[in-house]
């Protein structure tokens, strides 16, 4: 077990280095921050001076090496756009994204698993057919369109929910939360649905097909033959065995929720790290982009690790080989 974890941690570090390298080499193509940082009255001399000051005149490998050295000490530099330490800005923005992602993930899991089980058990019912048809919309419509549609219906036409922002937030010192105010909770609804809809339908369809698969197995028939209650058969025997692939996918989807919150955050002007990243791209704010990409890759790597560990916990067969990963 320990050897397994150590090996995975080592792999993770290699992955991070590669991500950092690829991301950093992409920055040479995203444009030049200098023009955004200086007003239109800037002279060629100003440009040269600022470029030297920022180290942008250095060769690529020197820039990457400096970035790595600083990043290892937890220093991601200063945002070109805001002139403040990137670490502070990320810490300030993270709560908004994490709260949004958590609510979306919760919504996606509860509804996804619930509806998946329902449509599997009532395979040919009218309701489950309707749900399956509707779920196609969730999979096929792009996120920004769903967001704009929801804004149009619930904010502009009905006026029930806010179209943008996080509402009032309560500042707990190291964390700002929207969970404690009415306007904060209201502001969460539309973005959370927008962000979670795709994941919800995905989980639902996955649970349904896995469940149908399991329900066909012999041990379910035996359970039924033994006269166990339908409820016990469905939930104790069938659902538990459905969950292994669901956990894998859900874990990865949680990463995707945080990473792809970018679009939802832009549509709803949600002040999280996704919106920060979009701003950074437009401004060519390299320190923010680099830190964000590293953060996201750390997150994906850790989620993968946790998923692997959960396999151990759920599926006894994996434990037999004494730490053989896959």
């Amino acid at each position, binding site marked *: 077990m320990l050897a397994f974890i150590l090996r995975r941690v080592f792999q993770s570090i290699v992955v991070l280095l590669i991500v950092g390298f690829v991301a950093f080499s992409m920055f040479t193509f*995203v444009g030049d921050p200098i023009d955004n940082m200086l007003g239109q009255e800037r002279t*060629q001399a100003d440009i040269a001076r600022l470029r030297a000051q920022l180290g942008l005149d250095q060769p690529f490998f020197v820039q990457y090496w400096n970035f790595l050295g600083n990043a290892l000490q937890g220093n991601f530099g200063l945002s070109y756009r805001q002139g403040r330490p990137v670490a502070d800005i990320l810490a300030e923005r993270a709560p908004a994204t994490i709260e949004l992602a958590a609510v979306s993930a919760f919504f996606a899991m509860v509804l996804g698993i619930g509806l998946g089980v329902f449509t599997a058990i009532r395979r040919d019912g009218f309701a489950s057919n309707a749900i399956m048809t509707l779920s196609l919309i969730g999979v096929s419509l792009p996120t920004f369109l769903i967001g704009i549609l929801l804004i149009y219906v619930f904010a502009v036409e009905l006026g029930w929910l806010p179209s*943008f922002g996080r509402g009032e937030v309560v500042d707990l010192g190291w964390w700002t939360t929207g969970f404690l105010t009415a306007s904060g909770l209201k502001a969460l609804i539309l973005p959370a649905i927008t962000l979670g809809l795709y994941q919800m339908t995905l989980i639902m369809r996955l649970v349904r097909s896995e469940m149908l698969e399991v329900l066909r197995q012999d041990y379910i028939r035996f359970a039924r033959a033994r006269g166990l209650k339908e409820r016990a058969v469905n939930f104790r025997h069938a659902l538990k065995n459905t969950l292994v692939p669901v956990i894998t996918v859900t874990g990865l989807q949680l990463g995707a929720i945080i990473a792809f919150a970018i679009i939802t955050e832009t549509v709803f002007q949600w002040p999280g790290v996704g919106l920060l990243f979009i*701003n950074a791209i437009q401004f060519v704010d390299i320190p923010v982009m680099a830190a964000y990409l590293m953060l996201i890759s750390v997150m994906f790597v850790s989620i993968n690790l946790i998923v692997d560990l959960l396999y151990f916990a759920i599926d006894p067969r994996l434990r037999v080989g004494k730490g053989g990963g896959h």
Partner: protein
Amino acid sequence: MNLTRHALLATTALGLLAGAAQAQTLRWAAAGDALTLDPHAQNEGPTHTMNHQIYEPLLLRNTAGDLEGALATDWQVSEEDPNVWIFTLRDGVTFHGGQEFDAEDVIFSIERAQSPNSGMKELLGSIVEVRAGEGNTVEFVTDGPNPILPANLTNLFIMDQGWAEENDATEVQDYAAGEQTYAAANTNGTGPFQLSSREADVRTVLEVFPDYWGMDEFPMAIERVEFTPIQNAATRVAALLSGEVDFVQDVPVQDLERVQGSDGLEVITAPQNRTIFFGMNVGADDIENDDVDGENPFSKVEVRQAMNMALNRDAIQRVVMRGQSDPTGIIIPPFVQGWTEELNAPPEGDMDAARQLLEEGGYPDGFSVQLDCPNDRYINDEAICQAVVGMMSQIGINVNLNAMPKAQFFPLIENGTTDFYLLGWGVPTFDSEYVFNFLVHTKDDSIGTWNATGYSNPELDSQIESLSSMTDLDARDQEIADIWATVQEETIYLPLHNQVLNWGIADGFETEVQPEDQPKVKYFETTGS
């Protein structure tokens, strides 16, 4: 139109009465946030707009675009010395922190804005010394007579010296050096509003400053301002339509009718101080991305004139801009000193005449070239470029469109590595000299920095340089007219149109559109309160 307006007023009258108690809060949304609150760190529109509510310059551009005294009540060139401007300071002005405003603050602020980290220093390049004068005056000494100095000071905000010293904010915020400055997040101005809270890119709240000197001079109808940047245009309009914000800058042209047609909302419009035009690399011997070897078609004035004729400005205004632009024949908007009706008229011309010119230029069969175009900077920029591709093909010029984000586009201008490009330009000084300095003068390290055409005319250069010290304003105007005549004749640029500003505003609030897109809340009026 009028009928619907009245019906609309009647139906919303009740709502307005109910909302009157809240009417003093202005909820304001725009596409971008101020980059910093340090008034001298950045020379950028949204940053200045925010700072204009909190800080004040000596003089500013009011909603009509005219110069108006803010912290100065009077300004004139010294009778004894033409190199000195004398500003008479306003009495009885205090900073938000209670400090008295005086000449020392002006001197301190100008010197601070001249320091190397400042984004404002280029506007102050001619100033050699700022000193206290007789009585309550400040004298600006320039390195020669500078007739348009006041126009360079309209976004130059005055800080309190004592406050800056106490809080270690005497240095302008520097991105690269690493220290966070106090002044980037805290303010102490003399302006009508003081900062109540700020979360960058999320929300900035301002409260009225009760001791503001202009309480009785301006409407001052707003007590509280909640500013929220909303990047996504559809969301910004939705927030206005749903009543979550009262005032929106930059309403997209495709949503104007929707906003105008909504109960309780109005679109107010005015010409913007920004002209859109095309530039060509006229200076190079050969250009990169064309199909003509060893020569540069743009170096022929006939070719440039032919292209100028082939631009169908009316079609672009009608189809691409949905009427929201002002076609032009010169690269300055009407309020800029030097503009005339005649210069503004686009060339009369038809496709036959244009083809004829192209033939005279030596390209009867045309040529092909690449057009570099930003796609996130000006209103409908990429769509404009697409339309121009079609127009040029009618006279045989085959244009390949290369559209890209501004972050990649502007380095092409900076390095002069583009053959044919679209650019927009605003004139903060409202004077032609500014345009000549940046767009017409031969490019070198400190002047002509936005002239990516490679055009160089030493005679024109010396005419441009002479402008900065001409104190006889009539002679200066004549010189400006002469320079424009050459620029137009040589067709260095192909002017397209002036942009139009569209602000969306809820009933109950009134203001005029400021041509620099800098709303100043002290001029806002409210009705029904």
